[in-house]
Every structure is written in C-alpha cells, then in structure tokens.
C-alpha cells in the first residue's frame, strides 16, 4: 500500500459539495495531490461532469437506487469501502445533520478521528491538515490535527466559496460497492415549510431580542428588513422562553453570515454572538451602554430601538428614494 493520497469531498447536499470542492481545491494544491468528489445517488451520471467543472479531478461515483432514501447506512458503507480501497489523505464531509452522523460513523469504522464543523482549514509545514472550529459555546476556536488517516473534517454550509464553473477534463470512476441494508425504516417525511429565503442565506438580517417587548412590535423590524431587502431573525429567549417564534440565531440555532446584521434590543450573550460573528458588518442598537453586543459591533447606537428603528427605516427610504 502506498501513501494515502487525494483530498476527497462528499455531501448529500449539492451546494455544499461545490463549496467543499472550492476549499478542497486549495488544500489539494498545497498537498500537490488530486481533488476528488464522491458522488452517491441514483441516476447521477450527469452530475459527475458538473463536479469536474467545479474543480474535481476525479469523481468516484456509486449509482444505486438504495441512496434514494438518504439512509445513513448506505452512505456510511459506500464511503467506508471507497476510503478503504483508495485511501484518501483528507476527507471533507458536509456538516448537515445527516452528514455529521455519516462522518462520525465512517470515522469510527476507519478507526480515525473527525473534527466537526470546521470553519478554518489549512495545511501546515508537515503537510498535516489543520482543522479549526468553534468550541465552548463560541468562546474559543480550537485548532486540531489528526494522527490517523484519512484526516476527516466536517464543514458547515457557507464556510467556504465554490469555484467558478469551467469546462475541464476529469476522470469519472464508477465503483460497484456492496451497500449495507439499512436497519432503520423511514415511515414518514414532513417537509418543514421554508421561509421566503432561509435566514442563513439572507444578505441582510435584522434581529430582535428581549428588548422588543411585544410580539406585535416586530412590525417595526419587519419594515426595516423590507427597506433593506433582508429578513428578520430572533434570539433564543424569544423562541424558548416567550415561545413567539421557533427558529433562532445563535450557537444552538442558525449560524449566519450576512453582509449586514442589525441587532435590535439584543444584549449579545456569547451564544448569540457565536451565531453572528462572521457577519460582514454588525450594527448594534441597545439602550444599555454595557450591553456586550457593543464589543463586537462596527456601528453602534445607544438608545431606544422603538425610536431608532423607525427613524432608520425613514432615513433609508429617503436616501434610497423608496416611496
């Protein structure tokens, strides 16, 4: 057996696969090795060329109707056999909930490590993959490396950029793998009604916290979000304690990185900040001059959101000439 080689990427989510290829391309260059995508599904041959266009030198493809049900067992057995056969050096897996389960199980079968939710990936002077992730409720970034191969990391959506599509040549390798029979049975799938734009994908997010006294008062935030072409988001206490909404932004909820985040009446506890830290511009509006959110803000206004938010909407309308 030779040295493990190749940077591999896999996600059951296509957009995320392309983002992994974007980062994987950089890592493979540094390691002077090839970049490969693992494509698991039914009738997926047409997707293989697209993966090549987005950076894959090779596509390992397993075409099997059993992937239709998105059973973890199918993915786990396919990835494990492929990794045993071809011995990749690095394996990046998309950090969806399904992906995280798959990664943990593959890593166990291959008796290796796995660092989840990596937002920092680089190659050190010893050609090891350095994997950085947020720990301790967003208080710290921990950097890790793996002594065992493959070096497995899971990567959350929107951590890295995909490459531009280019017509390129690459190799498609069809592999026959015996898939494990699932021991769980999916009996029902209920789609969760998607918001207009998912909050993680919104370019502008106007977030409200405990400083918003009544649920109806969110109409002033809704108006500001509309003027800005954005979405409204909530903090965990509004969802968990007041039960006004179901989906919050923060470490345990959605992590967002919009171009513009405006926090209204949000104190900025560390768990919330962990979910907004990567925003390009952070604006904080809060009555309390000691609110920790001011520590992480680019623009800050100390004052009453009930006065400032409507005034900001009005000022923007005037300047942007929106009637």
């Amino acid at each position: 057996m030779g040295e493990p080689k190749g940077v591999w990427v896999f996600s059951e989510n296509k957009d995320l696969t392309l983002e992994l290829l974007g980062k994987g391309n950089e890592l493979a260059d540094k390691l002077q090795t090839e970049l490969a995508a693992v494509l698991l599904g039914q009738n997926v041959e047409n997707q293989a060329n697209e993966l090549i266009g987005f950076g894959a030198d090779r596509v390992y493809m397993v075409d099997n109707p059993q992937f239709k049900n998105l059973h973890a067992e199918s993915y786990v057995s396919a990835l494990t056999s492929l990794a045993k056969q071809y011995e990749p050096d690095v394996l990046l897996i998309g950090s969806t909930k399904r992906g995280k389960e798959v990664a943990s199980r593959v890593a166990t079968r291959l008796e290796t490590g796995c660092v989840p939710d990596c937002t920092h990936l680089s190659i050190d002077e010893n050609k090891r993959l350095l994997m950085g992730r947020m720990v301790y409720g967003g208080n710290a970034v921990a950097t890790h490396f793996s002594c065992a191969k493959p070096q497995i990391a899971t990567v959350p959506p929107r951590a890295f950029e995909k490459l531009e599509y280019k017509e390129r040549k690459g190799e498609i390798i069809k592999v026959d793998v015996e898939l494990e029979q699932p021991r769980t049975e999916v009996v029902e799938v209920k789609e969760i009604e998607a918001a207009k734009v998912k909050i993680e994908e919104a370019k502008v997010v106007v977030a409200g916290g405990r400083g918003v006294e009544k649920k109806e008062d969110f109409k002033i935030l809704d108006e500001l979000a509309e003027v800005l072409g954005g979405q409204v988001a909530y903090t965990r206490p509004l969802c968990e304690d007041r039960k006004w909404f179901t989906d919050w932004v923060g470490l345990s909820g959605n992590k967002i990185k919009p171009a513009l985040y405006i926090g209204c009446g949000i104190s900025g506890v560390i768990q919330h900040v962990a979910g907004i830290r990567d925003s390009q511009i952070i604006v904080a509006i809060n009555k309390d001059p000691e609110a920790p959110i001011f520590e992480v803000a680019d623009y800050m206004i100390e004052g009453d959101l009930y006065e400032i938010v409507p005034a900001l909407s009005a000022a923007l309308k005037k300047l942007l000439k929106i009637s």
Partner: protein
Amino acid sequence: MPRIIVCVKQALDVTELRVDSATRLIIAAGASRKISDFDKNALEEAIRLKEKQGGEVVVVTVSPEDAAMTSRETLAIGADKAYLVNDPSFEKSDTLVTSYILSEVIKKLGEFDLILCGEASVDSYSAQVGPRLAERLGIPQITYVRKLSLDGNVVTGERSLEDCYETVRAKTPVLLTVTGEINEPRIPSLMAIMKASKKEIVKWNMRDLSIPEEKIGVKGSAIQVTEVLAPKVERRKIVMKGETVEEVAEELAKALIEEGVIGR
C-alpha cells in the same frame, strides 16, 4: 419492561469561562461543571418512558475528573442507578476514545433496549459520541430525535433535520440522540434529592475495565489539539452621533449605504 441506558456527560458551564485578553487563552479554572443540557433531555425522556412502561433507567458517566455530583444529580432527577467511570488517564481523549470507553462499559452492563444520548454536548458540541457508540456496539441509531415512542420492541423517532421531520422506525436495541425540543426536563424535588442519597452509584476506573492503556487518552486518540484561543475581535465600534434620533439614524443610514451592504 425496557431497560434504558442514558449517557450523561459532565460538561463545563461555558457561560462561566473567562478569556485572558492579552493572550486570548481561555480560563476554565473556576468554571462550574454541570450535566450537559441535551443529556438532561435524554434522561428526562428515559424517565418518562419508565413512568409509562416500567423498567429501569441506568445512567453512565465517563469522565477524567470526579463527577460524583453529576451522578448524584441524575439519581435525584429519577435514574435508578448510576455508573460513574472516572479515571485521570481519560484526559485528552477524543470522541474515538470516549465512544470506545463507553462501549466497553455498556458491554459490561448486560442487555438493554435503548441507549439515549443528547444530540451533542454543550461544551464541545461535536455530536459524535452517540453515532460512534452505536457503531461500536453494532446497533441501529436514530439521531436528532424530537419525538420518541416505544411499542414493544419497536422504537419510532421523529428526527428534526434542517429541511424536514423524518419519522424513523427500528427494532431494539437502538441508540437515539435527542434534541432540546423533545421535552422540558424536570427539576428534582427536595424529596427526590433526599431519596436519591439511598440509590447506588457504582464507581469504576481503568482497573475495572479490560481496556489497554494505549487505547485511551492522548495515546489512543486520533485528534490532537494544537491551540484553543478566543477568536480575534476586530470590530470598529463606531458610535453614531447626532442631536436628534433622526440625525443619528441618518448618519447610520449613510454609513450603511456607503459600505454597500444593503440588500436591494
């Protein structure tokens, strides 16, 4: 009647961590320990199943530091028996090792119907130990469960995924990881706390497990940590000024337009 094992981690209370601003190092000394949040949901769910169907709830805690307070608290909440596996040599174990130790402990406990874990721990949040443990024990798993029922030997769990709720069925023994949505964990009464002092905590260490030393701690772990630092804060902290609210708002509006970050 079901025998349910609940894996409970003694976690750092992350809200009590401090940061040394000069070095960006995390100061954990003085931060208290607590039952990891979602593990409390797992324990609560196990107790509710037992209240309906009878059976036994057994808690397993593996920790490099003394975690007797945590074991005692799980008994007060309603577990029947707690196994506390505590050895300083577990220090710096990664999830590969932690799941291995847990699997060896559980193999010693005999037959069971369900293993419940939290979806992730509140301090390291890796969400790996549950899935890895099921792999090691060779049993089916249902992760991110927000609703759970047990009918004879059939477990049904509704998984909370990003874009759907997926209802999954499997035959026992099954490992499930649960989300915070599944229930509201109870706070033990004074009576329950007093009664818990009569329940048994079984304390084990490395000598009670047939585990080779090279498979645990740093030696056994695949993942090593090079540094843990508070993230850099490089925000501009520009205060918006003006005589009136309108002036302040206009100054901010101009700044945002200039930044080019407006969505429309």
